[in-house]
């Protein structure tokens, strides 16, 4: 078995590196650049019942060592994802984690129920943490009871394991994590973006048309590491870590904090070959650090 192979609920991963939801579309663009079968998995863009255009532009703004986005969950809707995007992805030997979003519990349940039947969808990622939609989204991600109830409902209908994506914009991340674990989550993914804003010097207006946006990239890595460190010691379900990962060294740091796999978001924009490069570099770094298998790194900071 390779140094990088990992088994998680629903997922047999060649390696623990996958693109993060919203930073890879449905894979088509990157499919022109490298073989998507090289990836551990793919977290596809958030899918909602109906198609969504998302927020007005500008939708991105740069910040120090990070970026803000307010895409607003633009996606072609459940039907198209089921009939066009997922079948296209089926040509690759790579498990898909479907990011599920909505404005009401019913929305989530409907998307989860149907998308979890797609043959290449091996797990769901419940996006209860999108900061860029006015209704739903973030509310589900900040009140433990609401998150727990949603997780339960989705678990009831899903054909595949359910990971819940946590928002960092909370006072007590451990409480949120425990709530969704109680609700039956099979795993956690964290972190989503921090809520931020930038203003234009000349006009005084927000740079993003949506005013606020989600902060991602290297700037947020210390927050992600801290939260994964705290949560991984308090739950018994695995964590897929993300937030500012760019290089193989970052992956190790996330594992040390308590992650069992990682996702790469913003770095795909800076270097579209970021994921395959990280996957290529990992074995050598593990060798240097004296690990036989990457799973030995998980939780090393507190074990």
């Amino acid at each position, binding site marked *: 078995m390779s140094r990088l192979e990992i088994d998680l609920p629903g997922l047999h991963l060649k390696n623990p590196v996958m693109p993060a939801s*919203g*930073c*890879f*579309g449905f894979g*088509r*663009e*990157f499919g*022109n*650049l490298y073989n998507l079968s090289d990836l551990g998995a793919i977290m596809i*863009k958030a899918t909602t019942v109906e*198609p*969504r*255009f*998302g927020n007005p*532009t*500008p*939708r*991105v*703004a*740069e910040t*120090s*060592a*990070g*970026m803000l*986005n307010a*895409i607003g969950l*633009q996606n*072609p*809707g459940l039907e198209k994802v089921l009939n066009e995007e997922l079948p296209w992805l089926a040509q690759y030997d790579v498990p898909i984690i479907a990011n599920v979003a909505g404005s009401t519990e019913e929305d989530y349940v409907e998307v989860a129920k149907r998308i979890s039947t797609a043959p290449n969808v091996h797990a769901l990622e419940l996006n209860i943490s999108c900061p860029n939609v006015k209704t739903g989204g973030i509310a589900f991600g900040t009140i433990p009871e609401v998150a727990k109830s949603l997780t339960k409902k989705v678990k009831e209908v899903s054909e595949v394991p359910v990971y819940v994506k946590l928002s960092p914009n909370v006072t007590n991340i451990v409480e949120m994590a425990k709530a969704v674990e109680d609700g039956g989550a099979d795993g956690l993914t964290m972190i989503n973006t921090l809520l931020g804003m930038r203003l234009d010097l000349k006009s005084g207006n927000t740079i993003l048309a949506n005013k606020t946006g989600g902060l991602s*990239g*290297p700037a947020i890595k210390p927050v992600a590491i801290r939260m994964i460190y705290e949560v991984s010691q308090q739950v018994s379900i695995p964590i897929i870590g993300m937030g500012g990962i760019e290089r193989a060294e970052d992956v190790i740091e996330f594992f040390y904090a308590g992650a069992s796999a990682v996702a790469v978001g*913003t770095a*795909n*924009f*800076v*270097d*579209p*070959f970021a994921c395959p490069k990280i996957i290529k570099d990992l074995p050598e770094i593990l060798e240097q650090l004296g690990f036989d298998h990457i799973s030995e790194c998980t939780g090393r900071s507190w074990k």
Partner: protein
Amino acid sequence: MIVNENCTIVSQKEIAGNIHELILRGELSTEMQEPGQFVHVKVADGHDPLLRRPISIANINHEKKEFTLIYRLEGRGTTLLSTKKEYETVDILGPLGHGFPIEETNPGETALLVGGGIGVPPLYELSQQLVARGVKVIHILGFQTKEVVFYEEKFMELGETFVTTVDGTYGIKGFVTDVMKDLSFDTIYSCGPKAMLKALETNYAADKKVYLSLEERMGCGIGACFACVCHTADDPTGFSYKKVCTDGPVFKAGEVVL
């Protein structure tokens, strides 16, 4: 094909007030075909700044495997880029997007190329390709003021060229649109400020084939992040969209909502 390469700087110089011409050499120049495509530039290693900067391709020299970028010093990214010197390398991703369709003007016909400010650069490669195809070209290049006028002679070598400045310090005083009234042409190709593009669309799209190059803030530049979308004109408040980075940056007037 999209390639990521550290291209070598052949030359970099200021050709007008705060406007730099950067000539780069790299294998990815062999992938550059359509005029109006752009590259995505990582101006510095590391996190400051983090994201790439989209810059249009102003000239392609396939023989020497060189290409030219012309950019204005705007903020941190372009300012840092301007400090790079000969023999240093620049991390380029490209070529990206779809450019101007030269095949929409037949040999013998006349194309009007209308550029505003830092929208002028991609028109230079376009003009050369049109001329090579046997198209007659007329250029109208609009600038703010005399200090920032560039490439006038180069365009003059290819065809009739009108320069306007908003403050009248050089060429014709006024906007590019003022000059157009008296000209006859078959197609319009344009790149520049949104107000200019809108004026062209409003006044000419009904009768002429008009192609407009848009700008939008970008994340990935390759179609994956949905940062740069615009509504299509036939469904201006609905779900259908185009991405400036991959479907554009050049669109036919009337195709998308400006």
